[in-house]
């Protein structure tokens, strides 16, 4: 039977502490991996910005195709993140769910602003709405990744 705890109480204590330290060090490595794809949050922000900009497209443009492409790209973005990091965090915590909800609402808000700007004959101002949406979505994505890192760090 394997037992890598030495005999003697103080040796057992230090052996146990070393093992626990190894586990912490491994978790730190996973957190580094989650940090590696620096492109994730800005790409997510860019998708939001593209969506917010769609009211500026000409009437003849196939907006449905653009919106479908954005959704598909969003899904591929998440899959790509999992593939690059080799880590799947499939369950959302409450905080991550709230951040995701806020991201959706914020994007829809700026989209409605863009619609209003387009209807008011101010299509160039849609750029400002898209930039604001990009910054908000990128910031929320960064918070989401940070929350996932904390989840890995806080394991028993």
């Amino acid at each position, binding site marked *: *039977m394997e037992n890598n705890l030495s005999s003697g109480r103080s040796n057992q204590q230090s052996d*146990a502490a070393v093992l*626990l330290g190894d586990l912490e060090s491994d978790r730190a490595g996973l957190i580094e991996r989650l940090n590696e794809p620096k492109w994730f949050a800005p790409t997510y922000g860019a998708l939001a910005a593209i969506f917010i900009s769609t009211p500026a497209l000409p009437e003849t443009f196939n907006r449905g195709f653009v919106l479908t492409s954005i959704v598909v790209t969003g899904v591929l973005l998440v899959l790509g993140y999992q593939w690059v990091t080799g880590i*799947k965090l499939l369950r959302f915590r409450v905080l991550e769910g709230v951040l995701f909800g806020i991201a959706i609402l914020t994007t829809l808000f700026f989209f409605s602003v863009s619609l209003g700007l387009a209807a008011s004959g101010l299509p160039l101002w849609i750029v400002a709405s898209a930039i604001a949406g990009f910054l908000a979505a990128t910031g929320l994505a960064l918070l989401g990744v940070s929350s996932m890192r904390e989840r890995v760090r806080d*394991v028993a």
Partner: protein
Amino acid sequence: MSPEGAFNELVHEPIRLRICGLLRAVDELDFAVLRDTLGISDAALSKHLKVLATAGFVTSKKIASEARADARRLTWLRLTDVGGDVFDDHIRALRKIAAGTDAFA
């Protein structure tokens, strides 16, 4: 689950302990990431995973990856609910030992 902790010899082997520790932190982990983090060979890792899988602590899911030129599969590993409970109990026991508050002589 035992609030006092429960030492488990199978999980206590250092590599298997680290495997469980890594899988406990995430929902699924790629085999290659596990191998690279532990710094062991594919064969050695597979041997330990087989022991854990036989005990019902770990499951795996193989997915064909078109990104690989040799059509090798990606393998996603997951700690089962039983494996998670056993690992948590073992960690509680280890913490008690480390703190010197255990019943071990």
